[in-house]
């Protein structure tokens, strides 16, 4: 009996020792990589943002001037969404939002949507998605030019009714064999545009400390535009 007990204590302490060694190894690696990892992630986001809002358009640090908003109606996610603001001489030039199209063919599609101050789209990019290779993945810029069709579009030059894929009577091409993917993307972009229109004044304000502002939820405004359309 006593033998058994001492054996258990010995085995337990060996196991504990190895847990400590494991924790030590992982924390050590973490401590000398976490700065590099944070930097990589920052650069990756910045690279995507640069593609949409070139350097000559703005003079601020895109990553420093952000607003965090939670609005599941507008951005398709219950978690907070970051809106990056590009300004020149303290004037808002463009905003970049990262909404999610929740109804892609294989789950959510993460987007970056850049809108000029006048409401025109600077561009749209799919940042991450799991759409079918060869069919739905044509939303990627390296697979097809489809996503460039958004450039220059706005709520002003395209009626909300036409913010759909062609099969649904809209302006945007669907892909052969894949309608769900472009439909989801078009819908998400439209919602972001509507959100921008509804909250333009607040988004353009200069205050840098506007992180926790209460902005108008999309739902009510969407109802409004619908009514005026009919």
């Amino acid at each position, binding site marked *: 009996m006593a033998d058994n007990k001492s054996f258990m204590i010995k*085995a337990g302490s060996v*196991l504990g020792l*190895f847990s400590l060694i*494991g924790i030590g*190894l*992982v924390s050590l690696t973490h401590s000398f990589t976490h700065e590099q*990892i944070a930097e990589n992630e920052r650069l990756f986001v910045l690279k995507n943002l640069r593609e949409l809002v070139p350097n000559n358009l703005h003079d601020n640090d895109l990553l420093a001037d952000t607003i965090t908003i939670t609005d599941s109606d507008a951005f398709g996610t219950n978690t907070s969404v970051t809106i990056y603001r590009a300004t020149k001489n303290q004037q808002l030039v463009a905003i970049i939002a990262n909404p999610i199209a929740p109804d892609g063919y294989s789950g959510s599609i993460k987007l970056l949507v850049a809108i000029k101050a006048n409401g025109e789209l600077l561009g749209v990019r799919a940042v991450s998605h799991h759409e*079918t290779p060869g069919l739905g993945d044509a939303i990627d810029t390296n697979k097809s030019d489809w996503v460039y069709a958004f450039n220059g579009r706005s709520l002003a030059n395209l009626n909300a009714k036409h913010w759909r894929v062609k099969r649904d009577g809209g302006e945007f091409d669907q892909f052969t064999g894949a309608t769900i993917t472009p439909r989801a993307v078009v819908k998400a972009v439209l919602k972001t545009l509507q959100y921008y229109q509804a909250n333009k004044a607040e988004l353009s304000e200069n205050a840098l400390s506007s992180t926790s502002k209460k902005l108008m939820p999309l739902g009510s405004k969407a109802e409004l535009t619908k009514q005026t359309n009919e």
Partner: protein
Amino acid sequence: MNSYTQIIKNGLWKNNQAFVALLGLCPLLAVSNTVINGLGLGIATTITLILSNSIVSLIRNQVGSEIRLPVFVLIIASIVTAIELIMNAFFYELYLILGIFIPLIVTNCSIIGRAEAFASKNPMGASFFDGLGMGLGFTAALVILGAVREVLGSGTLFANAHLMFGEAARNMTIHVMTDYEGFLLAILPPGAFIGLGLLIALKNVIDKKLAEPAKQEVSLTLSAKKS
């Protein structure tokens, strides 16, 4: 030294973890859609195998048999987490592609398999080479399957090589077939199963061919004895 080459040979061919033992199929099938993806995961798996085999062999006499499996799992999980962090820091773009499959190395049963079947019974040198051989064998399987699927699926080889070897490798991409529409099935998961099946069949054919002359010799000597 001779036994070391034997161990390596074992890992590369005779007991290849992917083609013979059929272990680690999850990462093998999921990541082998291009050569570079396969190579990236193969190298990460090889490093894990070498480290886990060496460490397990080093402590094999200190850890009682009752708790050896949890200890092995602890060691492997720590190594993989460390490798994941290092890849995240220094090979970020490749990490984005391999992303979720790096933590999955932990679940690659060939790693705990080698720790249990080989490293816990053999000295450190042999275990090191076993890890190297098994890792190289697994990498070879990933790269070959990746090459087959990439050529059939998109008509290229070594696409995205710059993610691993830096900007200089951007031109490494070989367009095997120009103006190729792409064979979607090869890139999708079924293509991985079919490709793996064909490669295993090919290996069996080669093994049979290699075994035949030996058999003939045996039967010749037998018949010579009879007469």
